[in-house]
Structures are given as structure tokens and as C-alpha cells.
């Protein structure tokens, strides 16, 4: 904390330290000038000798030194006095010139500028009253996430090592001014300045393209503010394991994630469909997707992405043929074709005709597109999985109609959002991944009964005094069923368009709970439905009067005085 305050006061002290010499010089000049004027004898209009006093001397020097020029007061000067005044004028000009040049030098000083921007940044972070997220790394993923957070009205602070990206932050049309710091996220001081230890900081998201920087952030969060969650991107198994050992709660590996989803889609299309549905953008139509077929797959590019894919889909008992220009770096028993998948010969050799699917997973976008175009020509029925590395190539990838497009930055951003906005969702998704198609189809049927073909909004409610004070108080004193939370506060006979997906009670998960379930204080409930239902529900969670109506169907008098006057019941 001490470190922090000294950083904040830095700019002011740097300026003061540099201005010390010129200020003393000015004081000395004034003192000498005034002293001289007082000492030199003068003659007034009547010829009487007079001496200037300090008051008039200071008055005269003040306007002479600031080059205003005002004449000679209180009497005309003698030549001796004028000689002294000439000296004073030149002296004071030198003094001002020195002081002003020094001041400009200080303002131009790099250290001073840095201190000033740092100070401004720290001040804007300190002013953030609402809970905010700290985003380390403002690359493609960071920007995507920042836009989504802004859309959800959640403030955030950004650190990036590249000044151009922080400049870009100012150009974006965000609803509020997001503070941005140019600095290395590996340095704990920068993280502290960006609000890591700020009481309103509710989470840190490390998305830099440097695995070790993300690891350093994870460690800093663990040690400096262990209360808040850290979401970290990791693209190697080693770093992910290291992060996990530090208690990092959410480690996001986009390749691993996608490979897992692809395997799930092959194994259980229904579960995958449900998962897609729950993590999609609320309010959009759900696109019909092809189910990845079982059979022999070709995987082009056996890098980190290819390895993750192969690891997951071989578990589904699929045959895989690898295509890579380099011999395998890790031992693998799979058939291997040396070469680049962009050439038809290589694809023939790998047996593209007998294959059912192809994964174009190299780290070069143009090669990936070339692979899938060539492969589709050779076998039009191929199921195509395409990896897009750069957001800038989005238009090209949109033009090619692939069955799956993997955009790592989008996967990470979606995952972060899902974790941040509805923490229960990832818990539910873990359940979905274990379940079979029949169960998933049943859930889909229930959800689509209220939302149709639209992607549902997903939200969670915790019955505590902060999120749902009215309900928490009620369930402490009397029984209340889950169905009450789904009644329309305008007309209690109507059902809100939402369904509960899961109730978390302590360590216990109750999947797809019955509406008759009795609520307890501290329960967390995950809902899916129309976003309008979410808003309606909010009104009854906090307002005891609305809750009274929903439970008993009577309007309850709110004020104590009115109750006394009318003798009305207090309800709950």
C-alpha cells in the first residue's frame, strides 16, 4: 500500500524536485532587487531626500519583474535608482526565463509524463465504484471480451504492454471510459495500480499471448487477492498444470475446449446441441448444425490444436490419419502422411475419398482455407472443421461454408463471459457433458417450450440477503416452493417464460428440479428462459410487497403508518 501511494504522488514530487532551484533563484532575485531599492537613497518632487520602504519596493519590483511596467512610484527615481532598476529588470528576466524553461523541461520529461499518466490511471481506477474486472492483455480476445462486458454494463480495467492497443481503447465507443494502462502485467505493481487489491475488483482475466505472463498474473492474484477468481488463458499443458497448482479457478485452453466440444458432438449430438444453446448469444436463432459423422477423419497439422483434437476424438473410437510436413514430435501410433494438406496428392495419399471428416488445424489461415477447398473438391461430402487464427480473416472464413469454424479468441471470450456472468452455468455444462442424448433432448424440449427456437438467456439467483433479500427472509421464516419464483408478478396465475435447470444446495446439485421443490436460504438456482422473465423475477427477489402478491395474491400495505391507520395485515 505504501508503494502504491508513493507511485500516485510521484508526478507532483517529481515536479517539485525539479522546480526547487528556479524557485530559490526567483526568491533570491526578488530579495536582492527589493533590498537594493530600499537601500538606495532617492529625492522626492520637492527635493527632500527619501528612502523607498519595503512595501513600495516590493510593489515596484512585482510589476517590473513580471514585465508589466508601470512608471516610477511613489516619486520619480534618481539616476542611481534607475541604474539599480536596470540591473533588476535584467536579473528578473533571467529568473523568469530560467524558471519557465525549467518548468517546460519538467513537463516534457519522460519520467514526469509517465508519472502523470500513471497517476491519472490510478485515480480513475480508484474512482470505479461498481465491481469491475481487470483484463490483462487487450489483443483480439481481450477486445472481444471488453465489448461484451461493456454490452452487459460491467466496467473493466485494461492492462496491455503495447501502447497502441491502449490508444485503441480510447477510440472504442464504450459506454464508460475504461481506464487503460500501458505496462507489463507480469509486474505486480502494475496489477496493483490497475486495481488488483481494490475492494471493487471482482475478477482478473489474463488473456495475454504470453503463457508465462498469464501464469505470473495467476500467481499475483493468488498471493495478493486470493478472494477473487482468476480466469487465465493457457495454451500448453505444462502452464495449465502450473496454474492449477496455484489454485487458479478457471484455466481456459481454447484448443482443448474445442476438441472437447467436437468429441461431445460426435458422441452425443443432443448434449452438444444443448451446450451450444446455453452458451449462445441470447435472443438469436439457433442455427441448425450438422452432426459430425463417425468414421475415418483426417487431421492436418499436428501442433497443439491437432494434438488436442486427436486426443479427444480417438477416445470416441474414430480412425484418424495425420497430415503434417514434420514427422511427429510426440510418439503416436496413428497413420502419418508427411506433407501439407493443401496439395491434392497428399490428400489422395491420406485417403480423402474414404474419410468422413477433415480438420484443417494449422496455424496458417490461408493454408487452412486451401486445405478445405481442395479436400471438398476431392470429396464433397466431407465434414469440415476449420481453424481460424486471425479475426482479420473473418470475411474469408465466412465465405467458405464450413461445418465448424474454430476461432480461439471467440471460444475464450464466450467461456469467460459464461463463467463471469453465470458462474453456475459451467457447473451445469459439466453435468451436460456426462449425460446422454435422451436426457439432453428432454431438457431441450423443456427449454424450447418457453423460448421456441430462440437461444435462451441463462442466469442464476442466489437466495441470500444481497441478491434476493425478500426471498431469503421469507424462506427463513416460512415454506416457499420453487414454482413461486416463476410466477408473473403482474398476474400471479401466469407462468414466467423460464425453467429452472439446476439448484445448488451446499455441495449437492439438483438437476432439473421439480417446481414443488421447497427452497432454502443459500440455494443457488440456475434459470434458462426469456430475458424478460429475468427482469420480472428480479422485482420479486428484492421487493417484499411484490413477493407478497406472488405468494398470497393480496396487495400488502407497505408503510408502517398506513398499516396502523387502516389496520391492514403486514403479510409476511
Amino acid at each position: 500500500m505504501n508503494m502504491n501511494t508513493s507511485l500516485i504522488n510521484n508526478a507532483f514530487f517529481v515536479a517539485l524536485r525539479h522546480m526547487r532551484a528556479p524557485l530559490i533563484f526567483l526568491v533570491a532575485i526578488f530579495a536582492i532587487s527589493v533590498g537594493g531599492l530600499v537601500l538606495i537613497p532617492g529625492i522626492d518632487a520637492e527635493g527632500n531626500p527619501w528612502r523607498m520602504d519595503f512595501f513600495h519596493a516590493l510593489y515596484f519590483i512585482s510589476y517590473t519583474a513580471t514585465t508589466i511596467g508601470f512608471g516610477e512610484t511613489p516619486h520619480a527615481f534618481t539616476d542611481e535608482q534607475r541604474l539599480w532598476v536596470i540591473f533588476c529588470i535584467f536579473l528578473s528576466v533571467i529568473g523568469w526565463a530560467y524558471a519557465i524553461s525549467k518548468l517546460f523541461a519538467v513537463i516534457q520529461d519522460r519520467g514526469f509524463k509517465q508519472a502523470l499518466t500513471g497517476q491519472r490511471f490510478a485515480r480513475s481506477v480508484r474512482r470505479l465504484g461498481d465491481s469491475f474486472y481487470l483484463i490483462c492483455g487487450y489483443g483480439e480476445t481481450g477486445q472481444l471480451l471488453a465489448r461484451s462486458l461493456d454490452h452487459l454494463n460491467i466496467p473493466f480495467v485494461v492492462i496491455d504492454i503495447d501502447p497502441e492497443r491502449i490508444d485503441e481503447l480510447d477510440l472504442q465507443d464504450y459506454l464508460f471510459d475504461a481506464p487503460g494502462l500501458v505496462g507489463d502485467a507480469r509486474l505486480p505493481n502494475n496489477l496493483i495500480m490497475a486495481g488488483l487489491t481494490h475492494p471493487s475488483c471482482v475478477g482478473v482475466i489474463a488473456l495475454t499471448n504470453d503463457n508465462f505472463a498469464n501464469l505470473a498474473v495467476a500467481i499475483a492474484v493468488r498471493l495478493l487477492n486470493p478472494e477473487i477468481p482468476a480466469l487465465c488463458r493457457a495454451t500448453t499443458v505444462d502452464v495449465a498444470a502450473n496454474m492449477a497448482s496455484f489454485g487458479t479457478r478457471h484455466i481456459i485452453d481454447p484448443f482443448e475446449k474445442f476438441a472437447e466440444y467436437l468429441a461431445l458432438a460426435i458422441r452425443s449430438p443432443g448434449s452438444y446441441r444443448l451446450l451450444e444453446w446455453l452458451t449462445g448469444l441470447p435472443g438469436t436463432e439457433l442455427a441448425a448444425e450438422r452432426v459430425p459423422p463417425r468414421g475415418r477423419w483426417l487431421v492436418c497439422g499436428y501442433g497443439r490444436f491437432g494434438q488436442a483434437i486427436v486426443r479427444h476424438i480417438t477416445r470416441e473410437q474414430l480412425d484418424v490419419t495425420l497430415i503434417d510436413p514434420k514427422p511427429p514430435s510426440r510418439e503416436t501410433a496413428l497413420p502419418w502422411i508427411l506433407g501439407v494438406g493443401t496439395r491434392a496428392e497428399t490428400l489422395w495419399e491420406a485417403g480423402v475419398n474414404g474419410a468422413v471428416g477433415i480438420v484443417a488445424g494449422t496455424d496458417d489461415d490461408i493454408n487452412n482455407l486451401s486445405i478445405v477447398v481442395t479436400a471438398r473438391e476431392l470429396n464433397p461430402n466431407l465434414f469440415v472443421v476449420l481453424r481460424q487464427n486471425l479475426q482479420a480473416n473473418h470475411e474469408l472464413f465466412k465465405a467458405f461454408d464450413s461445418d465448424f469454424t474454430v476461432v480461439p479468441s471467440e471460444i475464450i471470450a464466450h467461456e469467460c463471459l459464461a463463467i463471469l456472468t453465470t458462474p453456475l452455468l459451467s457447473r451445469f455444462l459439466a453435468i451436460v457433458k456426462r449425460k446422454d442424448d435422451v436426457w439432453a433432448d428432454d431438457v431441450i424440449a423443456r427449454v424450447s417450450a418457453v423460448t421456441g427456437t430462440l437461444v435462451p438467456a441463462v442466469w442464476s439467483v442466489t437466495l441470500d440477503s444481497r441478491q434476493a433479500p425478500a426471498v431469503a427472509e421469507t424462506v427463513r421464516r416460512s415454506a416457499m416452493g420453487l414454482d413461486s419464483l416463476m410466477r408473473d408478478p403482474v398476474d400471479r396465475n401466469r407462468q414466467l417464460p423460464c425453467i429452472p435447470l439446476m439448484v445448488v444446495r451446499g455441495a449437492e446439485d439438483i438437476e432439473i428440479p421439480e417446481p414443488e421443490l421447497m427452497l432454502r436460504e443459500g440455494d443457488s438456482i440456475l434459470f434458462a428462459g426469456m430475458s424478460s422473465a429475468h427482469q420480472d423475477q428480479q422485482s420479486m427477489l428484492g421487493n417484499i410487497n411484490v413477493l407478497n402478491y406472488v405468494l398470497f395474491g393480496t396487495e400488502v400495505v407497505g408503510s408502517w403508518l398506513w398499516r396502523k391507520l387502516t389496520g391492514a395485515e403486514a403479510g409476511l
Partner: protein
Amino acid sequence: MNLEKVVFGFFIVLAATLNFGFFIGEIDKPHHHHVSELFAAIVVNLIATVLKFGDRTQIGAIHLATSLVAVLQLIAAAVAWGYAVYMSAEGLTPGATASVVSLSGGALLANLISVTMLIAETVMLRR
């Protein structure tokens, strides 16, 4: 020997002594308190104050604070003196002199605190 310390010590002590020189004497006798000494005290105090700019130590901050207090009091004394001599109809009455001198007395106290701190700092530094 540290030249910075010499310069700073010099100005702190000089500020206190000049202030004392102006202050001493009967409080309402104008001829006991020479205005040049007040002027010199103000100048030296200003320099002592500026010398502490940018010092980020705790004791430096207190030094700056006491110097600022002394400067403030001395300038108030100068203003009171100027007002009595030029603006008030009565001129430099014993009452006006007394208020000028008592203001400078306040500054003297601040200056004495500065000197005390200077000594304390030196004693604490066992070098």
C-alpha cells in the same frame, strides 16, 4: 560532510535567528522591531521552504509543513505592517505593532520546531 545538509541547516537556523531578532523587544514599541529584519526573515523562510520541495521522507514532509506555517505567519505580519503604515488612518500604533510582532512570534514558534526537528534528525543519524 553533506553540502545539502549544510545549506539546509544554514537556512533553517538563519530563518529562526532572523525571526527571533525581529520578534525580540517590547511587543508594542515599533522601534524595537526593524522592518528590514522582517523582510530578511521572510526571504530566508521562503528559501528554506522551497528547499524542502520534493522531499518524500516523513521528516521532510513535516519540515515543509512547519516552514509553510512560518512563511504564512510572516507574510501575515508583513501584510499587517503594510496595512498599519499605509492604509489605516492611525499609522503604526502600539496595538498594530503588537499584532505584527505577535504574528511573527507564531512564525518563530514554527521556526523553532523546524530547528528542533533538524537537531533531532541529526542526533538520530549516528554518523
